[in-house]
Structure formats: structure tokens, C-alpha cells
């Protein structure tokens, strides 16, 4: 186990976004979080990333603590900095050994322009690539992806899933939120289905495919 949510719940005032849930993120596994809008998927992912504090429960980390890369649905980057400046800043904050070298490598990996244009001037797709690149800076053990392919073109989607597959096969873990069932079928080892803030199904991909009541979209 690299990361685990233990009785993690989240409320916004009287509104319950996530009833207490348990989830373990294991090495070498790719987990899909699926469910209709407002099911609590992004909330759970943000809590796992440490970007949101749970109202109850806790997030446990393995020893030594794994590095976690988070790709939120809405890009989390500085709009008035160029992609390189964004990446260098986060690389230094992450204490990456060779910030400039890592940034150059990642810019090439996600095929981002290395020019004077600031992030706010990039296309939505390129902003999402930058979002992904920032998450990859520290060479994370756990990659948390919140609908990462929504704004990507087919080529970039393919590259992303290749990367995710390499990562999970290399002993890392990937947790991704998606509305795309094809992505679940092709890339998920485990599937967790949420509805109204509750986990209504958790099992392997095969189990999911064989459980019609877990298909909450249909």
C-alpha cells in the first residue's frame, strides 16, 4: 500500500460531498474512479493529494512516504509565467536535483512550446499538458489524475496512457477520474464507482464489467 484513505469524508456546511470512505492505493495498480457528476470523485482525489483536508478520517502514507503527483481537473499553475518558469518554480519547490534539466525533459515529453508565451495564453490542451508536466516533476510514486484527457488531443491521450502504464508497471500507482468507459476498460486494473458521495462498487475491472448495477452511467 502506498496511500490509503481511512474513513475519509468531506462536508461543505450541511452538504455532504463525500461520506466516509476507505480506499487503498497499491503499487503497480491503476485505479479508475468513476461516477456521475457530483459523486465526490474529484473531492476524494484532492484529499488523497493533500490539497483538501478531510472533514473526518485520515489519509495514511506508506513509509517512506511516496511522492504524489496531482493533476487537478482545472489546471493549477501560474497564468502569468511561461511553462518553463512554472515548471522551474515547482521543480525548485519540490527540491528536484536538476531543475533546468528536468524541465527541459518534461517540456519535450509533453510537447509543450518553450517560448515566451505565458501559460494563460496557451490553448486549453497545452495548459492541461503543463498541468500534467508539473505533476510529473518529482517523478511521483503515485499519480492522481482528475479527468486528465478531457482537453487532450488523441495523440496526447495516447502518450498519457502510455506514461501511466509505464508508471504502474514500474511499481508506481495511478488513480484516475474519468467519465470515459473506454479508458476504464483499457487502463484500469481496479474500478471504484461513486454515487452521491458514497462508494457503491469497488473491485477489479473484470468484476466491474460483470456487475451491471455498478454501471451507474447507464
Amino acid at each position, binding site marked *: 500500500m502506498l496511500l490509503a484513505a481511512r474513513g475519509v469524508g468531506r462536508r461543505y456546511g450541511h452538504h455532504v460531498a463525500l461520506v466516509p470512505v476507505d480506499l487503498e492505493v497499491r503499487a503497480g495498480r491503476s485505479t479508475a474512479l468513476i461516477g456521475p457528476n457530483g459523486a465526490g470523485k474529484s473531492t476524494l482525489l484532492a484529499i488523497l493529494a493533500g490539497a483538501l483536508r478531510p472533514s473526518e478520517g485520515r489519509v495514511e502514507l506508506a513509509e517512506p512516504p511516496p511522492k504524489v503527483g496531482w493533476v*487537478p481537473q482545472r*489546471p493549477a*499553475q501560474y497564468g502569468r509565467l511561461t511553462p518553463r518558469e512554472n515548471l522551474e*518554480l515547482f521543480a525548485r519547490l519540490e527540491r528536484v536535483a536538476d531543475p533546468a534539466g528536468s524541465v527541459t525533459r518534461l517540456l519535450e515529453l509533453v510537447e509543450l512550446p518553450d517560448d515566451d508565451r505565458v501559460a494563460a495564453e496557451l490553448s486549453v490542451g497545452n495548459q492541461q499538458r503543463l498541468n500534467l508536466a508539473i505533476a510529473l516533476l518529482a517523478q511521483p510514486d503515485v499519480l492522481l489524475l482528475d479527468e486528465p484527457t478531457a482537453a487532450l488531443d488523441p495523440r496526447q491521450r495516447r502518450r498519457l496512457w502510455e506514461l501511466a502504464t509505464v508508471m504502474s508497471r514500474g511499481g508506481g500507482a495511478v488513480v484516475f477520474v474519468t467519465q470515459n468507459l473506454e479508458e476504464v476498460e483499457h487502463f484500469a486494473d481496479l474500478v471504484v464507482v461513486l454515487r452521491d458521495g458514497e462508494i457503491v462498487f469497488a473491485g477489479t475491472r473484470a468484476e466491474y464489467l460483470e456487475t451491471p448495477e455498478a454501471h451507474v452511467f447507464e
Partner: protein
Amino acid sequence: MTKIRLLLGKDLRILGRSPVLLATLVLYPLLVAIIVGLVVRYAGERPRLAFVDEDGLPAVLEVGGESFDVPTLLDDAAKDVELVPMSRAEAERQLDAGKVLGILTVPRGFTRDIKSMVVSPVLVLRTPPGGLATRTVEKAQAFVYTLNQELQQAYIGSNIGYVELLLEGGSGTILGNDFTLIGLAEARRRLEELTGSSDPETAAEAQELLDFLEQTTVAIQGVDDFLRATASPIELETERKGGRAVLLSTQVQAYALALTLAFVALLLAAAGIASERDENVIGRLAGGLVRLGQLVFEKVALVAVVAGAIGLVLAVAFGVVVELGDVSGGQPWARLAVIAVGLLLAAAAFGALGTLIGGLSRDARTATLVAFLAALPIVLLGLVPTGAVPAAGWISDALPFTHAAQFFASALGDTDPAGTLAREGGWLVGLGAVYGGAAWLSVRRLLT
């Protein structure tokens, strides 16, 4: 500290790429400096008064045997006001149009009264209602005081002339009556002759008169000093030296500095922290990269650096304006380092308050608007005189503006400011810590 430095560098870089914001930050204090410059210049300027001569003052005025050149007399006395001769109708027009601050009228009978030396002549000053009237009256009073001093010297000189006539004898004129006196000296000589008379009774009376005459002469010889002492029972001797004085310029500068910091620091801090939220970065930073306390500290530091630097430029600009305006008091040069410390402390305190506002706001636009709306009453509360409304004073004490203004006023104007600087500096540090703590809670709330 490295992480704070990285975030600070990032914010300064972003600030440098926001031309409108940067221009506003530069132009805003410049605008304040210009306004302050005008006010300070006004502080050293003579009010313009319409001079309406209804009596037809002569070019040369004879008072108590002394001749006065009236234009020269008015010029000499008018160092506090600018007198502009004009007709009554024109004066009324200019007063209504605000081109003159008052009308100084020489009423009919003025020359007659002044010549009589029996009735005090009257000058009439009319000012419009409003805040400038008090200052105009003060300046006009100074003008009349100077005029009286000029005339007083003539009156005393004239009276002393009569005393000398009494002592030495000769011819003179009083109230149009010519006369000739033998004088006490001649009277004494003649009495001395009589004391040698063969008639003992005459000689004794002459000796008695001579004794009286000697006593009178001694007494009259002291009249010069008596007259001067009676004219000015108390005299103010002004010694000009390089001391510092609390003048209008000092107060204006202190408030302008505090006001600039209030607006710039509050807005910058509120927008700064709210922008982190708008860009969705707080979550990423809080996910193990930066502690929230470091993020709040960085915003406060950013504001302290930027607003402090703007304040310092402003203080120097004020100093130049004060020098050019030839206004005494309020020059910052000797205490620029102390002022710089005050600027940093005040900017940090305002920055912490602004960060709190930004942390409580939903987005950067709201934060900026709330910070702007908050800055105005904070400044106005600080302008309410201490003791006038106790509640306003208490609230103001809990805000940085008053303490910043008092710190700057003391640094600029007090001869021994150590106590005030320590007290107000302590307030600013304390308020910065309290608001910084509250700001940390407000930012933490964003993640909970």
C-alpha cells in the same frame, strides 16, 4: 526560507508583467505626492486678499509727527498676505469666484482715526465660510500685527521726541497746536541762578524747585524704556536654528504615507493571496510543497517590500517638495532609515490585514473590491481626532493606519521621537502578528 524566496521571486516577476497594476502602483503615490506637494506649498504660501480702500489712503500718512510711506508700509507688513488692490465690486466678484480668500477693507474715516491717535482705527476682513477662513484670519491678524508694530515704533519715536523736547526745549506741534518750551535743562540753569539770590526766601524756593526739577529730569529720562515696555509687555524673541518642528507639512506627509500604504498594501495583499486561489495553486502548494504559514508570510513580505519601496520613494519625493517649497519642518533626510523601518512595519501590518481579506474572499475580484472598500473607512477612522468619538478611537487603535501615521509624524517632526516610535512600532508589529495569524486561519479554511 528558500521556498519563501522562490514564491517572492515569482510574485515580483508576475507583478512586473502586469503593466496596468505596475503603472497604478507607480502613478498612485506620484499622484498623492503631487497633491501633498500642493498642500505643502499652500502651507507656505500667502493667502490672496482683495484690498479695498474706501477711505482713499494718502501716499504719505502723517501720524504723531511721523511720516509713513503708505505703499512701503503695506508692502513691509504684507509678508503674511498678498494684498491685491481692487474695487469693492471686483473684490466681491473675485471672492465669490474663489480667486481671493477674503476682502480686507479700509473703511471711511480710517485716516482720520489713525491721525487722531485717540481712537483705534479699524480694518475690516471678510472671509467666505469654509475651512480656509481660519487660516486666512490668522494670516490677516499677522498682517495687522506687523502693521501695528511698524506704527508702534513711530508712535514711540514720536512720544520720545516730545520727551526730548521737554528735556532740552524747543518747538513742536501736538494735535495741530504749535508750542515752544524752554526745556528742563534751561529751567534748571535759571533756577540755579535764582538759588544764588540775595533774598533768602527766593533762594530757598528756587532750591526746592531745583530739587523737584532734578527728580523730574531723572524720571523723564527713563520714559524711553517705560514707553517701549508699555508697548510690548511681553516680547517673543525667535531664535532660528536647525531644530525640527511639527508643521502642517509633517502631518500631511505622515497621513499621505499611511494612506498610500493602506491602499497599496491592502489591495496588493488581498489580490495576491486570492490570485493563488483563483489559479487553483493553493491546493498544489499545500500538498506538501509549502506550509500555509510560509505562504501567508510570503504575501506579507511581498507587500512589505513593494509597498515599503513605494512609500520610501514617496517619502523622498515629499522631502524634495518640502525643500523646493521652502517649508520649514518635515524634511525626512535625517531620519530616512527610521522612516524606512516604519514603512516596512506598517506595510507588513497592512499586508497581513489584506491577506486576511483575501483569504476570506471568494476570488481576486471580490478581494480587491473588499480591500478597497475597507481601506477607505480605515483611513477615515484614523482621521477622527482622538477623544472626539471614543469608539472610533478604539476601533482605530485596532487598525494599522493611526499607528502608521503617528509613527511617521513622530519620525518627521518630533525632536525626541524614541518613545513614540517604540510605542507605535510595537503596535504595528503586534497588529501584523494578530492579522497574520488570522490570515493563516483564513487561508487554512480554503483547504478545510
